[in-house]
């Protein structure tokens, strides 16, 4: 489903070059639940960003569902982000001016889905994350756990096969964190492919296997949990 062939990423900051990833080969099968671990600066986020088509590799080829994604235009990548990938961020990244309902609806608006279809989907997702009564509330009126559940619902709006979560529990207390991980487990059991960056072994324990990164290279792949 996801295949990295010799992916490298180099950031240039003036004269200084920073190698974020070097020669990474990974393969993720449909239905995997993988944790990506490693010290900060090891390239976890860069890896996630390339998988999520937010960033493009400097070298190498990235195949998503068998198609080479390298070299696509911004708008083509936008379409992939919209349909294939759902993002869950550490700091939730909800739109502050929009209600829970509107936040969840957003990816469907960029896709041009019909009103009735959108409403049905948003209601279904709010129900799923247990926030139906909070539909009209703004993110600022919600707890961290609730905000992250809205973010998960939003990631699922377009029913993408892949969920990318960058430290999804990093800003949450352990109880809320576990609730979030329970949702991820449910999603995985529902057949979705999940990749999750974390540095917490207790959180990583929810996943099926782990990829360890160090200094931009894969140190260990497919460690079963």
């Amino acid at each position: 489903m996801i295949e990295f062939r010799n992916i490298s990423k180099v950031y240039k900051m003036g004269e200084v070059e920073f190698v974020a990833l070097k020669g990474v080969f990974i393969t993720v099968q449909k239905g995997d639940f993988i944790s990506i671990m490693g010290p900060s600066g090891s390239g976890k986020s860069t890896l996630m960003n390339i998988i999520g088509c937010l960033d493009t590799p400097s070298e190498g080829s990235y195949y998503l569902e068998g198609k080479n994604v390298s070299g696509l235009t911004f708008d083509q990548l936008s379409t992939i982000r919209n349909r294939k990938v759902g993002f869950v961020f550490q700091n939730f990244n909800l739109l502050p001016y929009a209600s829970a309902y509107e936040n969840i609806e957003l990816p469907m608006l960029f896709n041009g889905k019909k009103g009735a279809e959108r409403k049905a989907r948003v209601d279904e997702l709010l129900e799923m994350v247990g926030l139906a009564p909070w539909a009209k509330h703004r993110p600022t009126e919600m707890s961290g756990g609730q905000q992250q559940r809205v973010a998960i619902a939003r990631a699922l709006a377009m029913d993408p096969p892949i969920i990318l979560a960058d430290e999804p529990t990093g800003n949450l207390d352990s109880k809320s964190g576990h609730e979030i991980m329970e949702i991820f487990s449910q999603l995985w059991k529902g057949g979705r492919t999940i990749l999750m960056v974390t540095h917490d072994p207790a959180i990583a324990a929810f996943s099926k296997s782990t990829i360890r990164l160090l200094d931009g290279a894969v140190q260990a792949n497919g460690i079963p949990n």
Partner: protein
Amino acid sequence: MRMQLLHLYWNEFRKRQKKTSLITFAIAWGALSLLLLMSFGRGLSNAGSVSFKGLGSTMIMLTRGQTSKPYQGLPRARRIHIHMEDLELLKRQIPGIAMISPEANNSHNISYRGKESNRSVNGVYPCFAEMRSQIPAAGGRFINDLDQEKARRVAFIGWNVAKELFGDSNPVGKEIRIEQTPFTVIGVMKKKQQSSMYQGPDSETVYIPFSTFCQIDFQRFLDRIHIRPADPRDALFMENQVRRVLGRKYRFADDDANAVNFWNTIRDYETGAKIFKGIEIFLSIIGALTLLIGAVGVTNLMYAVVKERTREIGIKMALGARRRHIVMQFFLETFAIFFKGTLWGTLIAFNIVSLVNLVPIGYEDFGIKAYLLRPIFSLDILIVFLVVLCVLVFVSGIFPALRASRQNPIEALRYE
């Protein structure tokens, strides 16, 4: 673009509306300035044109002169007078004369039932009225061909003469005396605005048939000959023709500009119209610059807004927003600010123009008031305004919007 997306953009815009109120004011002010300056400029131009036509805008006026150079052994500084027979000469020799009228005048005592007044009495042909924009007020008429032919004792009087002798009563049909000769008043001049004149305004003058004038007043020379060319574009050509024909008769050089004098109102009118148009354009440019300052302010604000919302842009990109979704949002915000500002500016400008137009102006006090208090808010002004506005909206909106859409999604997401 989905309505729902517009609704979302609108919500995000509304939350920040307080921050935009100052710039909205600047746009309203700019729009107001532009519209007012254009309207007042047009009013000025119009007043200029109206008052020019008070004298007559399609005629050439010929008066006596003095030679300025020797010619065929004759010295310079000879007086050249014009005579009645020159009228026939010009008509015969120059094709393309549509109308021609002599004018001779003298000051005479005018009286009606004991009221007396000293006025200029002018003898003219019937076609004089049309060349000099003299329209009879309702119930009266100007001198006609029969009056001229039979040398009837009839008079067409300026409205101030009428007022002085008759007060508010209707002078038409009444008998006035010019010196001791009785004349029937056949018409009163309709009021008009007149900015340029010779020997006083038309409102103070009495006109009688030229033939009648010759019977009550003996003059060897004509004061003026008025000529209207069939085609106004021939104005300058005709002037030269007249000078050539008279030069042969009175023996002065073709290029002697002072031998006879011309008042070419066609040329004056064209020059005047150009000057007024120039002023109008100049005022419009000042107005447009005022609006431009507002537009620069909007661009500035939008750059700040883009920066402030970098992270939201990143979020939207991560959720699948295309570049056009981002461009559209910021462009629409620019549009909304402009729309609100110009709506206010236009409403206020329209009301000011309407109110100012309510200020009464008499025909007597033709002057600064007529130029300044009759602004015109016309369709073409509105069209020019909208074109300027569209250009400004586009230019001031597109650059911040493009910057927003060209953000790197990752950097945008990391932005604090």
